[in-house]
């Protein structure tokens, strides 16, 4: 099929159409306009490239910031929970590990236990228990109360009381003070560190010469905590009582 004849070349064109078609005028593109347009297009490309590179830069910045925040969160929140002994000093309990009356110090979560001889004051051994499994840690974090800082202060306080009682008993040789602190601890934290507190109380009572009472409480202690960590030391201590 061939193209139809153009009106400008056809005798059958409508009247007046040829005059209109001949008057048609195309607007030529001047070199100035072309150069100006080319410059605008180049600017467009440059601006887009700059915007794209800026966008990439911001993405890297955001990623680095996120990593920093996550790291800070780990350092401040998670790691102290995984290794509480790094923040809380050894608190402990004291026990006779041998006939020469060695002391046993342990942290509040039993993760670190140290033995030292009371005779010459040198440490004989340190036992570090493995940290709790990750699932336990996750559960601890998951159920962590919102008022975390308040609980941390409370934990420090209850540890400090027993620590002071232990120092009064073994370093200051002040069983009265030790007993008083143990009772204060019992009033403030009746359900916390009971085994450790009761052991100090028995030792303090014995130090005050109240051997009968100490024995009675010691035997009650053995019945209450038959598998406790202080069972051995308590038995050995009771055997030394008159």
């Amino acid at each position, binding site marked *: *099929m061939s*193209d*139809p004849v*153009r*009106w*400008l070349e056809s005798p059958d064109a*409508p009247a*007046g*159409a040829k*005059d*209109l*078609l*001949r*008057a*048609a*005028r*195309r*607007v*030529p*593109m001047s070199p100035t*306009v*072309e150069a*100006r*347009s*080319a410059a*605008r*297009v*180049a600017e*467009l*490309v440059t601006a*887009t490239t700059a915007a794209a590179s800026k966008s990439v830069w911001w993405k890297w910045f955001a990623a680095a910031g996120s990593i920093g925040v996550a790291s800070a969160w780990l350092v401040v929140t998670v790691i102290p929970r995984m290794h509480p002994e790094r923040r809380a000093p050894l608190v402990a309990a004291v026990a006779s590990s041998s006939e020469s009356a060695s002391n046993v110090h342990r942290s509040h979560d039993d993760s670190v236990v140290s033995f030292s001889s009371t005779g010459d004051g040198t440490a004989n051994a340190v036992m570090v228990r493995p940290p709790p499994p990750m699932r336990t840690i996750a559960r601890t974090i998951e159920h962590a109360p919102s008022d975390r800082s308040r609980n941390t202060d409370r934990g420090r306080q209850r540890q400090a009381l027993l620590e002071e009682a232990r120092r009064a008993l073994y370093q200051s040789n002040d069983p009265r003070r030790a007993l008083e602190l143990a009772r204060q601890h019992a009033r403030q934290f009746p359900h916390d560190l009971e085994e450790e507190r009761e052991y100090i109380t028995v030792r303090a009572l014995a130090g005050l010469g109240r051997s009968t009472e100490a024995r009675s409480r010691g035997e009650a202690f053995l019945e209450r905590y038959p598998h406790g960590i202080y069972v051995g030391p308590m038995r050995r201590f009771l055997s030394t009582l008159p």
Partner: protein
Amino acid sequence: MAGTPTDGASGTGEGCPLDVVSIHGAYARFVWTTLDRLGVREPDLEDMLQEVFVVVHRRLHTYDGSCRMTTWLFGICMRVAAAYHRKAYRRRERTVDEWEESLEGVASTSPEDDMAVRQASARLAKILDGMDLEKRAVFVMFEIDGLPCQEIAEMMGVPVGTVYSRLHAARKAFIEGLKRLDDDRRHGGKR
């Protein structure tokens, strides 16, 4: 007649580097001529040219080389021109007279001839403005620019039969528009 479909361009996308600066260098005149054919007025041509290349820059990744670059650019010009006519409808009505006034440099032998050319150009613009863009593009390229239908079909990305049918419809619309203008002039109407 000024402006062929491949002014400043090879007409194919083969071997043409696909970056907007290179495309501008090769096809700016083609885009300019196409926009002119699609009824973008002279004062707005430069802005619309820029608009087309903004679209090209944004959509270049979608060009897969399955069609000619001119066909792809023609489609963009069609959409840009359609948006232009929608937004500038009232302005276009106003600028017809301005366009008529701006017809300078038209070769004429006398002031009477000059006036006749101006009036004919204005009437042609009014008739073409009454057509839809596809018919207008085919009519202008065939009747004014003298392009063969096969080339028009390739440029528009349609079968040549479609060009024939659009040309037929465009001629019919042109005749109706011409008749309407004659009736208006006969009845003393301004336009």
